[in-house]
Structures are given as structure tokens and as C-alpha cells.
């Protein structure tokens, strides 16, 4: 094999060999390489400009192309294959609490307006939450209400029913069943409270119970 020291004693390498050299140098170098630099690195008498012409032709239409950047050359992946440089990772996340609650309200109260959702939740519903649920195709717009302002309503979709394995939204367990299943507080509605129980101690107990009850 030719070593750099004695190149000058020999003829320039054959053009096929020069092509290989250009190819290897452009492949391994971290920056685009100018013709001047190629000449400096290749054996004496080489003509990298000519070799580059052949190399460019060889890579035409391939997954990798020879490109010229100012006066330097480099290999680049073909622009139409850019999508391959993405690695898609799918991450499954739990729906946020706000989204679940909004979804639950739509499911139990459909068709329901945004104002009604807010009233039931006691907080305003962010646009993002509604958008997310629509994007997931779990809720969709229903008919407009025939009330002043003609607000849109939301209903759940077939996709929602499929995901939760429900035949229809009426299959959702009612409040009584939720309570029986321990998902609801067993506290009686206000007004029916035993007045004697309403001292500080009782209030404290309820407070504690509430926090213990916090679902998650």
C-alpha cells in the first residue's frame, strides 16, 4: 500500500482509487472539506476535483448525496428521507385530573354546555382541556342549545364508549351505585345534618375524612 512519504515517487493513483479516497475522507471528516484540503491529504498528483465529479454521479438518486457548501464538499442524507431521522416514541400518560373530571361531566350530563361543566366542576374549564378531549375523539360538539346565546353542547363519542367498553353513556353507574361502591362520600346532603353533630369536633372529623377520601 502506498504510504504518504513515497507518493511523489509514483504516478498518481488511478481515478477509481482517488474516488475511494474522496469518499472515505468526506465520510469521516466532521466538516465539509475543500478541494484544497483534499489535494493536501491525497497522494501527490491526485485530482480530487475530477474524482468529486464521479463521486457525485455515483451518489445521484441515492440515500446519501454529495453536496457543495460554499467551496467545500460533504455527504448529506437525501432531503426527502429526513423523516427517517426521527424516532418516534409513544408515551402513554394518564389523563389529567381536570380532563377526567370534564370528561366525566360530559359523560354523565350530556349534552352539556361549557357553562354547565364549569358550574358542576366549580372552576372554569380551560380551552386546552376541551381541545384535548376533542382531539382524542372522546367528546365532540353536540347540538346547540336553544337558549340565549345558543351555546354549543358537548357529547361523548363512539370512540369514548369503545374505550371504556360501554354500550352507551347511560350504562355509566349512577350516583347511588358510585356511593355503594364506596366512590362517593356517604355523607348525607346538607340540611339533613344532625344539628348536634355540628360542633367543631364533627367538622374536624369530616375534614379528615375528606382528605382521606381524596381519590387518586
Amino acid at each position, binding site marked *: 500500500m502506498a504510504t504518504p512519504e513515497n507518493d511523489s515517487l509514483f504516478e498518481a493513483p488511478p481515478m477509481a482509487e482517488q474516488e475511494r479516497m474522496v469518499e472515505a475522507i468526506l465520510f469521516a471528516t466532521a466538516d465539509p472539506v475543500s478541494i484544497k484540503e483534499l489535494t493536501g491529504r491525497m497522494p501527490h498528483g491526485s485530482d480530487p476535483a475530477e474524482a468529486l465529479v464521479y463521486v457525485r454521479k455515483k451518489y445521484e438518486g441515492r440515500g446519501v448525496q454529495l453536496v457543495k457548501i460554499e467551496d467545500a464538499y460533504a455527504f448529506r442524507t437525501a432531503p426527502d428521507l429526513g423523516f427517517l*431521522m426521527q424516532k418516534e416514541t409513544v408515551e402513554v400518560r394518564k389523563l389529567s385530573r381536570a380532563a377526567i373530571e370534564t370528561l366525566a361531566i360530559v359523560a354523565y350530563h350530556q349534552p352539556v354546555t361549557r357553562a354547565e361543566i364549569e358550574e358542576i366542576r366549580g372552576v372554569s374549564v380551560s380551552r386546552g382541556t376541551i381541545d384535548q378531549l376533542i382531539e382524542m375523539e372522546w367528546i365532540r360538539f353536540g347540538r346547540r342549545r336553544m337558549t340565549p346565546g345558543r351555546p354549543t353542547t358537548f357529547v361523548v363519542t363512539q370512540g369514548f364508549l369503545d374505550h371504556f367498553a360501554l354500550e352507551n353513556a347511560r350504562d355509566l353507574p349512577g350516583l347511588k351505585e358510585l356511593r355503594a*361502591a364506596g366512590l362517593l362520600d356517604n355523607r348525607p346532603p346538607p340540611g339533613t345534618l344532625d344539628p348536634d353533630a355540628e360542633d367543631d369536633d364533627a367538622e374536624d372529623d369530616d375534614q379528615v375524612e375528606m382528605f382521606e377520601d381524596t381519590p387518586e
Partner: protein
Amino acid sequence: MSDTDFENDDESTVLSVSDRVAAEALIVDVGAYEGPLDLLLTLSRTQKVDLRQISILALAEQYLAFVEKAKELRLELAADYLVMAAWLAFLKSRLLLPPDPTEDGPSGEELAAHLAFQLERLAAMRDVAAKLMGRDQLGRDFFARGITEDVQRVRKVTYTATLLDLMQGYARIRTKDDFRPFVMDREAVMTMEQALDRMRGLIGFAGEWTDISSYLPDGWNMDGVRSRSSTAATFAATLELVKEGKIDMRQGDTYAPIQIRKRADRDGDT
């Protein structure tokens, strides 16, 4: 005694002399050896034979000579070297003496064979290590791509929820509704401001003396806690209205009902 036997062996005597010389030459850089096995391997080279044909007996002799010389020169030898020396002395005696049938354990030949195996294996490992390092190496003889493109990690997030999440979410909202009075604090307390607001709205219709208790809001006059709170708030509100000159109030007797009426401003009687 074994020494005498050893000296009588012609071949061994010859080796012994040359080995002593070799050992003296080697002794200068004890530190250069990576332990006794390395030293033994180096010593074995002086036999200039295939490691499979090596004379372990001669090697043991060389090693012992080396240790002897080191002692003479008062060189510090690591414990390893002395352990090996003792073991080789033992091996030597086993190799030279006829096997004792009463003694159990491996024979001298077996022990010698194992040492030869160890030496051969170490030599082989050194040999392939050199071959390995002599191979074409990445970044020296062949090269990886210089311009790399980062693979963009596109994270696609999908959200999920279970029916249980959904029901719990709904239950949470309903529970919160039930609970609201506690969160809002006192359902059974009426503030003076609330009473005042209420009174201001009602007072316009009160031309006649009316019992103050009739101004209590619906549902606040039955329950003990609520009626106490609303009575106190309403009373405080009436005092405020009297101060403002909006109403007159009177009480016929101690503990008698308190009555109020709208003040007929200017056009009425004083």
C-alpha cells in the same frame, strides 16, 4: 538431601549455573514483574523450548535461585514471591522423591502439569492480546461517520384513562358539591352585612310596627343555631339602620318583642 539429588542430575546442574546468572541479570528490576507467575514465564524463556516441553523442575530451581539472590542483595520481595518460593520448593521435593503411597493429594507431576498449563495460558493470553491490539482499530485505521445527524426523538404522547378514573373523577365532583357548605365555612351563620342587605330591601314596606323576628329569612327561624345567628345579625342591622335614621325601633318591656318601622322622614310625625 533433595538438593544433592538435584546437583547430581547433569542437565539440571548445567541449567542451574546458567539460571543463576540469568537470575542475577533479572534481579535488578523485580518491580517490573507482575507477580511470580509473570517472573516464572520470563524465566521459562531462558529454556528456549516450547512451553509444553518445559522442565518445571528446572524452572523451580531458577525461581528459587532468583529468590535466594534477592535475599542476598537484601531486596524487599513481596509476600507473593515468597509464597511461590515455598510452594515451588515443595513441588521440587515432590518431583524428586519417589511418590509416598501413604500421602494423599495430587502428585508432583499433576502439580507441575498445572503450573505448566498456567504458564502456557498466560503466554497465550499475552499473545492474543498483542494480536488484538495489532488489529485495525476504529479511530486509528478505519473511521466512523464524521458528520452525524441527531436522530430527533419525536415523543408522541397518548393519554389514557380507565372507567374507574372516570367514575372516581365524577364522584370527586359530586362529593365536592356535598361538601361545599363546609368549604364555604359557615352555613349556619348570618353576618351583619347579609342582614343589613336584606333589611334595606325590606324596610320600605314596613310602615307599621313589626316584630323584628318576622324579618328573619325563611328557614333561619326554626333551627336553633341558625335562628340565634340570624336574630343577632338582624338586631345588629336594625341598630345600624336606626343610627342611619332609616327606622325607629321600640321594645315595650324587658324581653318583650322588639318592633321596628320605617321612619317617616320629614313628612311624618316625630
